[in-house]
């Protein structure tokens, strides 16, 4: 897939932003003492590309009717979304360390009732994609230009209702819908292929009538090219299988399912921050 049109300085800027978001994720999960760093770090580049290059959104008008919608179907990647929203100006950075604390708007899984910039509350898997289908149907019926992006987890692809919703998206030919799979290969207990294999996943999306692209989910040129191609598809939805690394950016978390739902200790968080070019200064658990 070619993406030569994206200038090097744009890529560098996105990479720097993603690194900042990863630093937030480590600080937040350390401060919270729990959370899901692995699947947050794997989805970081996808969310960065979405919020800084792809989504038509405006922090000055978060409820702008014609905005694009992002539904985090894998709601446990909440730290990544909160950090991205903060970097994009939708919430104060200082609020990030309240993650999972009593009274916080930053619930363990994203909660629209507490934080209205969240499009849909998710967490129990296999539901966000269905809500995204409803939103895409509404946009089409209402004549709004909004596009709807649903970020799916790969463990979530074992859930039957995920495929119900995907089937509906294909049946209704929702060309304003993008199913974006964070294919990091691991779920809570181990690798998806050792537990309940979802491959050949791209073929499954194709069979469900999705224009399907496979990319490196950490290569901004490939991510942006896939989004651009999805915009050109007018006769149905697009699925993007983004091959990612669980725990991306922190050496000892990469490819380790143990980091699906566990916070780093102080020593681990300090080491992670060192690798990401930051410090843990000022963050207390």
């Amino acid at each position, binding site marked *: 897939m070619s993406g030569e049109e994206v200038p090097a300085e744009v890529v560098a800027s996105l990479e720097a932003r993603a690194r900042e978001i990863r630093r937030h994720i480590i600080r937040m999960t350390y401060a919270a003492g729990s959370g899901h760093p692995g699947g947050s770090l794997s989805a970081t580049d996808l969310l960065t590309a979405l919020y800084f290059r792809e989504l038509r959104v405006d922090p000055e008008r978060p409820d702008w009717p014609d905005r694009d919608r992002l539904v985090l179907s894998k709601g446990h990647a909440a730290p990544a979304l909160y950090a991205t929203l903060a970097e994009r100006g939708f919430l104060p950075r200082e609020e990030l360390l309240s993650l999972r604390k009593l009274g916080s708007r930053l619930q363990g899984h994203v909660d629209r009732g507490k934080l209205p910039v969240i499009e849909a509350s998710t967490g129990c898997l296999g539901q966000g994609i269905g*809500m995204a289908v409803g*939103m895409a149907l509404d946009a089409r*019926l209402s004549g709004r230009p909004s596009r709807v992006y649903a970020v799916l987890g790969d463990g979530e692809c074992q859930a039957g209702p995920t495929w119900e919703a995907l089937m509906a998206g294909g049946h209704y030919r929702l060309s304003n819908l993008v199913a974006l799979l964070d294919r990091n290969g691991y779920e809570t207990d181990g690798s998806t292929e050792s537990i309940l294999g979802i491959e050949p996943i791209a073929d499954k999306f194709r069979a469900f009538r999705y224009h399907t692209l496979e990319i490196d989910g950490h290569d901004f040129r490939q991510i942006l090219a896939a989004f651009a191609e999805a915009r050109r598809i007018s006769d149905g939805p697009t699925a993007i299988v983004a091959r990612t690394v669980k725990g991306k950016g922190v050496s000892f978390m990469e490819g380790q399912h143990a980091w699906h739902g566990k916070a780093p200790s102080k020593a681990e968080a300090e080491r992670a921050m060192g690798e990401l070019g930051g410090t843990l200064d000022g963050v207390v658990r």
Partner: protein
Amino acid sequence: MSAPAKVESLRDAYGQALLELGERDPKLIVLDADLSGSTRTVLFGKKFPDRFYNVGVMEPTMMSIAAGFSLEGRTVYASTFAVFAAGQAYNFVRQSICYNRANVKIVATHGGLLVGPDGGTHQIVEDIGLMRGLPGMTVIVPADAPTARAATFAVAEREGPAYVRLTRESLPTVTDGSFQIGRAAELRSGSDLTIVAVGALVARALEVAGELAEIGISTRVLDLASVKPFDEPALLRAARDTGAILVLEEHSVLTGVGALVAATTGENYPVPVRRVGVPDLFGESGEAWALLDRFGMSKERIREEAWELLRLRGKVQ
């Protein structure tokens, strides 16, 4: 006694009301999961095809799609059988709809044993308990077609999720359709005993109350169609005025309206309460009304329980 009541379809009443709602609200959306003929949403679908989605056999995702539409500002009605709406789709109703405070009205037909010959798999007797336990959920169990019609409109007026349970069987018309959310309808006044009933058993409550009147027993009958929110003042007034309450529901006695009445009176004004409903059992195939008798909701059983309460209160020997 008055002339035999007219027997009308609650499902037809719902389908007709939806047509009117579709005219009133040009943004209204209706969803169904391959049972649109049975639920009567097909009527809406024929008249407003662009606002009707028959999503096929995917009840959980129907709830998520409904929530998605609703989060964009639309009122959505979603219909299927109660066993699928409250059972199959439970956690989707919980998270996609209730947790999101989505304005989705679930109108579930074929609740309870009156499903009949299809058997126990399809006779959900747990749905009122499941739906009542969800934060923010409104729960309505109409006793007849006029209430089904009124409830269809009433839930549209009330922001937030709602669950309306209808029966497959047509039922005798026992109300004047003046249903209001949060209000119990006193269908018969009385001072010796109160019968609180919902759904199909409201008619039986009135029959038994009529029989008791012939031997000088004055029985109040409350239709608790609005299960959540429910009319606590009317219930406690009945406890004070009559001193005993018999609850009738075509639902599990473990988690239904009987449990609600017992807890509410127990905390506020303890009086003897007895529950007539489905014991801790699944249903089975059979003619619909025969199933009510078989599972402990016969008129004889209702009379016996009423008599027991009257005896406890010293009103009969």
